[in-house]
């Protein structure tokens, strides 16, 4: 049953026809109880204008496809309820990325950056523990505390909202990898007990980790509530300090890394 009508102002851009995008208003009847922005946008696509391009898949905040800027705030369309917003809702594509059409953006850049991060590199002796008279299940065992630290980052659904909200990525061409996905990915590998590569120096020098000024917008918009700044960026910054700014810690760290056979990327 139609409850009230909202005006949906959707960004439209067709690269074949338009030079630049514009907002078009659509009247959409809403239904009481759990209607989300994606439902409204799909209503427009099905009933009003079938040429509207959107990217969506699971409608359960699992796939990270329907990222957009709803009322200028980066959010998942499938997780933003209509009844939490006013009668006029603007829906725009993520502005940090080039628009392909309407609400669909080209996020390929993120995967290119991701491929630059040094891969998971396991300690050599773990590959063949029988040579040292140890069992596979003993050397590959990970303690619970280590699992907990890295598990949080595995929740990432790659919606790239954090990348979109980051003012360094969005407004300044600095070469910063961006907080979101990439530092989280690197942190999850760095905190893995079986991995022997330290990525902090690489992130600081090539990833532009120093450009981040801890303003925590990425943490605010994360639909999976990952503590991006507190648990990934700040620990990575501290690791970079260990290697590059703190002579005392550098000496200790160098000894520990030598003992464990770790390398700096």
């Amino acid at each position, binding site marked *: 049953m139609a409850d009230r009508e909202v005006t949906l102002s959707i960004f439209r851009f067709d690269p074949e026809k338009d030079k630049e995008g514009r907002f078009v208003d659509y009247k959409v009847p809403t239904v009481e109880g759990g209607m989300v922005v994606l439902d409204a946008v799909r209503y427009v696509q099905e009933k009003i204008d079938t040429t509207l391009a959107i990217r969506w898949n699971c409608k359960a905040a699992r796939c990270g496809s329907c990222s957009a800027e709803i009322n200028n705030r980066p959010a998942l369309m499938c997780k933003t309820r209509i009844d939490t917003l006013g009668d006029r809702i603007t829906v725009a594509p993520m502005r940090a990325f080039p628009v392909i059409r309407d609400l669909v953006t080209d996020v390929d850049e993120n995967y290119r950056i991701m491929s630059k991060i040094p891969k998971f590199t396991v300690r050599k002796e773990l590959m063949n523990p029988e040579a040292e008279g140890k069992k596979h299940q003993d050397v590959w065992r990970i303690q*619970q505390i*280590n699992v907990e630290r890295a598990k949080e980052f595995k929740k990432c659904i790659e919606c790239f909202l954090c990348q979109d909200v980051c003012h360094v990525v969005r*407004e300044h061409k600095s070469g910063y990898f961006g907080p979101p996905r990439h530092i989280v990915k690197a942190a999850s590998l760095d905190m893995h007990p079986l991995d022997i590569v330290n990525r902090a120096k690489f992130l600081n020098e090539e990833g532009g980790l120093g450009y981040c*000024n*801890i303003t925590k917008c990425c943490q605010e918009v994360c639909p999976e509530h990952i503590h991006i700044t507190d648990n990934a960026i700040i620990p990575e*910054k*501290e690791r*970079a300090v260990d290697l590059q700014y703190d002579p005392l810690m550098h000496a200790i760290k160098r000894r520990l890394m030598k003992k464990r056979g770790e390398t700096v990327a």
Partner: protein
Amino acid sequence: MGLFRLTCYAYRKDYHRHIFSHPMACRADVRHENTKRKYNGGETRFFRVENVHRYFMYASWPIIPFFFYDVYVSITYKGFAELSLGSIILLINAIFVTLYTFSCHSLRHVTAGGGAECFGCVFNQSQPRSSARWGGFFRFQSALNRHHEALAWTSLSLLIFVDLYIRALGVHMFPNIILIH
């Protein structure tokens, strides 16, 4: 102590947002979004100095016992034990400053084991108990660390309030209420 607060991760967020406006807010319509606006380089140029936060943290540790010494003196300065409202306020202040200092992100990394790649490996794999204890400390410190920003502002406000309160007592603006004599 001032430098410790200036380079603190919690205050960094506030002054980068509200003084330098990079960015002013997360919403695109609120913040002054302008690609031509020059960026101060985050923490790559002048603010690189913030990387030595942990040394300011070490410097602030010896100051903490003096807060508790103040509480002790406030109770016993008359030659006998007397608990007044001022002592309670000093005690609350000392507790908040301690919690703020020990919820620090740098402490989490350096002392609580956040910098370790692997808990069990660094602290001797043959002694799983010690690594479990260390893990427990890391969990506890992380829980405290989650409230670092709130603790930062509460302790700063308290510091100012306590200074004004003591000054007001000094000029006899109002009497120090004695609770237990």
